[in-house]
Each structure stands twice: as C-alpha cells, then as structure tokens.
C-alpha cells in the first residue's frame, strides 16, 4: 500500500484509507452518531465538518440505534464513516447496495467529486451504470480471476459501432443482405439487421443505405454490460 508493507507497518500503511465493506456489521448497541465518533476517534479525526456535510448530503438521522436502522441507513452510516476522514485511497465494496436510486445518484456525484480531488478509488460493483459513470479502468472478474482489464473510454468511444436498420419491404432487405457488410444479427420477419461499421467506413455505409427504403435506423450504444456479457455468454451454466 503506497509502498509500505502492511504486515510490517500496519498502522502507517492505512493512514489515509477509507474502507467500506460489502456487508457492514456494526458493534452492538451503538447509535449512528456514536459509531461515527468511534471510527473518528480511531482515525484521529479532529474535524467533523466533513461528516456533518455527508450526513446532510445523504439526509439521514444518525441519532438512532444502528440495530434499528434499515439496510440503506446502515449503508449510509458506513459511507459516512469511510469518507469523513478525506482519505487518499477509497476501497468500496458494492457501495450503493441498499440505497434508493436518488441516493445512488448522490453517491455517484460524491464519488465524482472525490475523483476530481485526486482520490484513488477502488470500487467493486454489479451496477454497470455506476461503474460507467465513475470508473476509468475496469477489470472483470470471473470465478475469482481477472479475465480482462479495459479503459471505460475505449468502450464509450469505440472505433467501430453497431447500427440497427429496418427496411420497409422484403426486396430491399434481401438485396441489402447481399451487400458486403459485417452483419451481426438478422431478423427476416421484421426485416431488421444489425451491422457493425467502422467509423472510417461510415460514409460508404450511408451510401449503401441511401439506395433503400428505410423504416427505422438507430445506433446501438455499446455498454459495459454488453462487454461484460460477452465474457459470460454461452457458458453461464458452468458458473452455477
């Protein structure tokens, strides 16, 4: 961790880490405030303004007993105690689980804010939308091993795109099929086709399209999810 051996110098190495476990368990019989203060004391936090800001952001009443809190509230308490010390490194395990969509959004905004400050964030998540909006680099883990690493930018701005076309009549559809194109999916009944086109060939592609009567045309956005699924597709049975 930052070049310090955590086994030999455990306390120096995690001075500035904020950690949020996947399934947070709290010590018994503590209120939210007591817990935040407890973690704060362990972290030597002197200034609780950040904690108060975070409580404000998530709109949570931390004075109640943690035992009586819902999953989402516990998660918020966990988030607050992980973020309040302005850590340099954040390790977050499924941070938005249990949060409602509005809070998920606020959390993503919070992450983006932290990212701009230069915080290193390690996030594990099943939520593609959250990953796409916050992460720079993604590693996909399957059965305990990293199967691929990719930059989010590469997915968002891939040089080849996929388009979906639907034709008005059968004849156009048939002759379109004979064009030299990289067709990845067809549906003759609906006269639909999905075509992969490189950005450099986009004009030629439009030239071809011009010859036909088209009912419908759209770009299919590639998402992290598709990318992810391509690693799992076909052998989901093996994973069970």
């Amino acid at each position, binding site marked *: 961790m930052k070049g310090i051996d955590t086994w030999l110098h*455990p*306390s120096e190495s*995690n*001075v500035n*880490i*904020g*950690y949020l*476990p996947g*399934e*947070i*368990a*709290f*010590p*018994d*019989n503590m209120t939210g405030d007591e817990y935040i203060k*407890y*973690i704060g*004391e*362990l*972290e*030597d936090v002197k200034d609780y303004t950040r904690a108060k800001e975070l409580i404000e952001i998530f709109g949570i009443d931390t004075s109640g007993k943690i035992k009586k809190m819902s999953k989402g509230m516990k998660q918020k308490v*966990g988030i607050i*105690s*992980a973020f309040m010390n302005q850590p340099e490194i954040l*390790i977050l395990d499924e941070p938005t689980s249990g949060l409602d969509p509005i809070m998920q959004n606020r959390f993503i905004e919070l992450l983006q804010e932290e990212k701009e400050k230069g915080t290193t964030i390690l996030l594990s998540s099943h939520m593609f939308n959250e990953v796409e909006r916050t992460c720079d680099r993604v590693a996909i883990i399957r059965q305990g091993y990293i199967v691929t690493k990719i930059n989010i930018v590469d997915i968002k701005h891939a040089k080849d795109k996929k388009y979906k076309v639907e034709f008005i009549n059968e004849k156009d559809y048939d002759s379109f099929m004979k064009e030299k194109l990289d067709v990845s999916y067809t549906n003759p009944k609906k006269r639909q086709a999905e075509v992969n086109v490189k950005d450099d060939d986009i004009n030629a592609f439009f030239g071809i399209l011009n010859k036909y009567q088209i009912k419908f045309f759209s770009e299919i956005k590639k998402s992290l999810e598709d990318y992810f699924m391509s690693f799992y597709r076909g052998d989901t049975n093996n994973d069970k």
Partner: protein
Amino acid sequence: MINKTILKRYFMSNWRLLLIITATLCLFLLMMTFAYNQMMERLAENPTPAPTLDYTSFLANSFIGGMYLLLPMVFIIVVCNKVIASQVDKGALAMTLATKTTRNEVTITNLLGIIISLLAMFLVVFGVGLLASLGLNEGELIVLDFFKLLVGMLLLQLALSGICFFASCLFNTSAKSLALGAGLSIGFYVLNILSSIDQSVDFFKYFTIVTLYNPEDILALSFIWEYLVLGFIAIAGYIGGVIVFKYKDLPL
C-alpha cells in the same frame, strides 16, 4: 499498543455484566457470613465433637471455591468470546481494522480490559470481605489468608481467561471459540467436582487446573508452584492469542 477508544468501547459494552456479577458476588459473600454466624451460634448452643471450622477456611471452600469461581468464569467465557471471535464472526471488526488501528491494539487493549475487570472484581470482593468480617463477624477473618486465597482464585481466573482469550483469537466463529474456551472451563470445573467425589476417581484432578486453587496448600503456605503454573497458563494464553491473531488470515 493500548488504544483509549477501544478500551472505552470495551467498558461501555461490558460494564453492565461486570456490575451485575460483582454485585452478586458481594451479596453471596454477605450471605455466607450470615450463614456462618448462625452456624456458630447453633454450635455454641449445643456443642458437638465435630472439628470447628474457622471463618477463613469456611469462606475458602464455600465462597471463594464456589461462587467466586463460577460467576467470574461466566464473565470470562462471555466477554473473551465477545471481544474477538464474535466480532470477527459478525464482521464488525472490518471497519475497526480498516482504520489506523492495528490488530495488536485490538487484542492487547481488550485483554487489558478483561484483566482490569477481573482485578476490579477482586478488589471489590476483598473490600466487601473485610467490611463484612469487621461489621458482622467481629474481625474473625484472617486478613492475610483471605487475601492469599483470593489471589489464588484470581490467578485461576486469569488462567481461564488466558485459555478463553486464546480460543477467541484462534477461531473465526463464536461457536468454535466457545466450544474450546467454555468447553475447557466448564470441563475443568466438572472434573474438579468429580475428582472430589471419591478416592477411585481422584486421578481426575490431574486433568483440571481448578485443583491448582488448593485452599489447604495455600493456608499451609506451600502454594508457590501452583500459583506459578496458573500465572504461566495465563501469560501463555495471552501472548499466544495476541500472536495468533496478528498473523492469521481474517475472513473480513
């Protein structure tokens, strides 16, 4: 090494149990004193040839070897498991260890809390014993012997806490930690009772550390090696527990 916040946390979550057990102990001590007085009165009315029992050795067997062993044992079993193994089991230690706090701080601080608790119990019982003797028993108590007996039992408690603490540090689940810690403690107690039932099962006493608290030896002043063994078990358990916990793989 010692973390003030964790120590505070220890007492916040355990003071109730400590208070209840200490109070119960004091109550028993007072009751025993009353019982002794009544017994003496009855004996004075119609003297029997039975050997008379002085107050100190009466307490040595009835109170110190009984309640002052059992109740603190309950405290030790519950608290030792609670401070380490149960926290690991529930995962509550994850956030604590993610802060600057080290594993050694967690173990050593909680250990200190347990030792302080046992010492506090000891001091209160000693004090109440003195008062009870002065107030109700016209100072029949042999203070030095009473003190030595209590120290012997305190050492036995520390040895038990060493075993329970080690079990708590060794295992990641409450169930296993309790099986070893509580199992051994209760087993020792039961074996101690069994060994005193009959001469034929007398050998059981070699399998239990409870017999190392031996009132006869203590009052006869030949108790040093027993105290040394108990102290050794306690320290070995503590050090072993701290080391095991520092280097083990935690499922957090």
